[in-house]
C-alpha cells in the first residue's frame, strides 16, 4: 500500500474512532503535543496507559472478589482509572468508570461486578483500536510518509 493510501486510511480510521466515541478531544491534545523533540510521545503515553490500566483492572477484579468488598478501595481504583482514561481521551472507558463509581456508592455488588465487566470490555476495545491506529501511523512513517494531523471537523 502506498503512503498516500495509508494516510487516507489512517485519517478515516481516526475519524471513525471519534465518531463512535472511543476517543475524544483529549486524544487530539495528545497528538498535538507530539513534535520533533518527542516523536513517540503518543505511543509512550498510550503504552503507559495500557500498563497502568491493566494493573488497575487486576486490582479491581481482586478487590471485588473478596468476601467483604471494600468499596472505598474499589472506588479509589475506579477513580484512578477514570482519571487516566480521561487524560488519554478514552471516552467510553471513562464513561464506564463514571457509571461504575455510581454503583460503588450504592455498594451494590452485582451491579459493580457488571460494571467491571463493562469497563474491561470497553478497555479492550479501545486498546485494540489504539493499537491499530498506532500501527498504521508506524507504517506510514516507516514508508517515509508523515502522519496527517487529525482534523476535527465534526
Amino acid at each position, binding site marked *: 500500500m502506498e503512503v498516500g493510501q495509508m494516510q487516507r486510511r489512517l485519517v478515516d480510521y481516526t475519524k471513525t474512532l471519534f465518531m463512535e466515541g472511543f476517543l475524544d478531544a*483529549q486524544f487530539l*491534545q495528545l497528538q498535538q503535543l507530539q513534535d520533533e523533540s518527542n516523536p513517540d510521545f503518543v505511543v509512550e*503515553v498510550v503504552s*503507559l*496507559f495500557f500498563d497502568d490500566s491493566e494493573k488497575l483492572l487486576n486490582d479491581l477484579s481482586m478487590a471485588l472478589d473478596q468476601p467483604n468488598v471494600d468499596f472505598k478501595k474499589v472506588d479509589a481504583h475506579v477513580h484512578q482509572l477514570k*482519571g*487516566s482514561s480521561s*487524560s488519554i481521551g478514552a471516552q467510553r472507558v471513562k464513561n464506564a468508570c463514571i457509571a461504575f463509581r455510581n454503583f460503588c456508592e450504592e455498594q451494590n455488588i452485582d451491579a459493580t461486578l457488571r460494571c467491571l465487566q463493562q469497563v474491561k470490555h470497553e478497555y479492550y476495545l479501545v486498546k485494540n483500536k489504539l493499537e491499530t491506529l498506532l500501527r498504521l501511523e508506524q507504517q506510514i512513517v516507516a514508508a517515509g510518509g508523515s502522519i496527517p494531523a487529525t482534523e476535527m471537523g465534526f
Partner: protein
Amino acid sequence: MNSSSGKTYMSTSNSSAGWKAGDAAADQFPVGLRVLVVDDDPTCLMILEKMLRTCLYEVTKCNRAETALSMLRENKSGFDVVISDVHMPDMDGFKLLEHIGLEMDLPVIMMSADDGKHVVMKGVTHGACDYLIKPVRIEALKNIWQHVVRKRKNEWKDFEQSGSVEEGDRQLKQSEEADYSSSANEGNWKSSKRRKDDEDETDDRDDTSSLKKPRVVWSVELHQQFVAAVNQLGIDKAVPKKILELMNVPGLTRENVASHLQKYRLYLRRLSGVSQHPSNLNNSFMSPQEATFGPLSSLNGLDLQTLAATGQLPAQSLVTLQAAGLGRPTGKSGIPMPLVDQRNIFSFENPKLRFGDGQQHVNNNKQMNLLHGIPTTMEPKQLAGLHHGAQSMGNMNMQVASHGSQSSQNNPLLMQMAQPQVRGQMLNDTSLGHPPRLLSPMGQPILSNGIAANVSTRNGIQENIRAPSYNPVSQTSSMLNFPMNHAAELPGNSFPLGSTPGISSLTPKVAFQEDVNSDIKGSVGFLPSYDIFNDLNQHKPQNWELQNVGMTLDASQHSNSLQGNLNHAQSVLVQQGFPSGQVNGQNRSATVVSKAMFSSGDSTGHVNVQNGNQHLNSLLVDSTVRIKSETPTILYPDDFGQEDLMSALLKQQDAIAPAEHEFDFDGYSLDNIPV
C-alpha cells in the same frame, strides 16, 4: 540555583538560556517557571509534564506526595508553583497542600478527575489557589504563572495592610520588582533572617526594604513556636504583636506573623468543621479568602484583610457558601432565602461580590440587593425588593453591583470578584474585579442582613463562588447555600463555561444560581421568573435594554467573579438578567443590574446578554440554557448610562406597579424573608 540576580523563578539548574541575564529573564517570564507536579497516575503525570514543557516551564515530576514534600523542604525556593492531584495513595492531596502552605507558602494548584462540589470546596478552604479538573488541557496550564504573581503581590499587600507602618520604607512594591530581579538577594535575605540572633527587627526592615519582600519560611520549629505562642495567648486573643513578642524570634516581623496567623486560623477553621459559618461569614469571610486566594485579597485588600484579621470567616461558612454557590441546588425552597443569601453574600466582599451587593442593598432595599447577583434567584424577594426599592436605585446598583459591578454603591471591589485563583481560568484577573469591591463595603452591611444567604448568595454567589474567592461569601451566610449551587435548575447551569476544564468546577456554580431561580419559582428566578416576566413585560424595547442590562449585570456579576467563568457568567447573566428585565417593577432592578453589569460586564465582558430585546425575549422564554451558548455576551452597560437606566426603570416602575403583584412578592421585603 542560579545566583543570577534574575528572577526567582529561574531554574536552579538548567535554567533556560534566557535566565542568564536578569533583565532578559524578567522579560521572558513566565518561561522557566519552576513547576513541581505530583500525581500517582503515571499516565497523567507524563501528559502533564509534556504539556508543561510545551508551555516552556521547568518541570519536575513526582509520583508520591512524600517525595514531593521532601524535595520542597530541601529546596525551599527551588520551585515556584506546585500542582498536585487530590487522590493519592500515600498522602491526601489536601494534606500536602496544607503542609506546603504552612511551610513553604507556595501557590498550590489542585487537580482531580473529581469535580464534585465538595472536593472543590475543600480545595478552596485548604488554600489551593486553583482547582483543575481532569483531563487537564494545556490551555489550563498556560496561565498558572498568574498564581505565582498573584501570591507575591498579595504577600506584599499583606505586609502593607497588616499595618506595618514601619514597613513603609519597605516599599513593598519595589521589592516586588526586586523579587524578580534578585533571587540571590532573596536567598540572602532568608538566610540572614535565619541567622539573625542578634539582629533586631529594625535591621530586618532595613534589609527588607532593600531586598525583595522577604518571605519567611515557616519551618516546623518556627511554626511550633508560633502555635505555642498562640495557645498561650488564647486563639481569640492572639494578635500578631503579642505572638511576635512571645515567639521572640529575631528577624521575624509582625507582618510575617500576621499573615501566618491568617493561614493558621483558616486551617483551624477547616479542621473544626464548617459549623461556624454563619457567624463569621461576614467578617471572616473576607479574611480567609484573602489568605487563601490571592485574588480576593487583591480585591478588597484592605477590607479583606481586616476581615481576615478579625476573624476569618469560618472556613466553613465559606465552604458552605461556596458549596451553595457551586451549584448545590440546596433546596432553596423559599425565595426569601435566596434573597437573604444574597445579602449575605454580598457582605462577603469579593467574589462574593454578588453577595455583598446583595447585602448592601439588602440593607437598603432588601429586595434590591438580591437582585444583583441573583436577579434570577432572588425572584420574588428581589422583585419585591425592587418595588420597595424605593430606596434608591442606588441600592439597586449596589445590588446589581453585587453582581459584580455594583459600581454605584458598593464597591468597586465587588466587581472584582477576583475570584480566588481558583480557577486559573476564571480569575485570570479579568473582570472579576467586581467582586472584590463588594466585599469590603458589603461586608459590613451584610452582616446585618445575615439572611439566609442561601437565597441571595446563590445568585450572586454562584457566579462568584466559582472561584475560591467565594468563600467569603459562604461565610456571610452560612446559609448562603451559595446561590450558586442552588440554581440547580437554572438553565444557566448549562454554563457552557467555555472555560477550560478547570473552570468546570466553577461553572456548576453558576448553574446553581440558575437553579435557584428555578426553585424560587415565581420569583425572579431564572426560569420561573421568566414566565412572570413575560406576562408582566410590557417589554418595550427600552425595557429590554434595561433588562438586558440587568441581565448582563447579573451575568456580568457572575462572570466577574468567575472571570474564568465568563462563559458561565454569561449564560448565567443572561438568565438572570431576564428576571430583572422582565419585571417591570423590576426595572429598577434592571437598572441596578445593568449598572452592575456595566461594571462587571466590563471586566468580564461577559454579559452575553445578547442584546436585542429579542434576544432577551427568547432568552427569557427559553431556559437560560440558551444563554449559555451565547456566552460572548453583549454588554449593554455601555449603552445605557446608569442614569438613563434608572430613569427608564423608574418610568417603567410606574407602569408596572401592578405587575409586581403578580409576583407575589409581597412577603419579599428582606425583612420578611424568613431566614
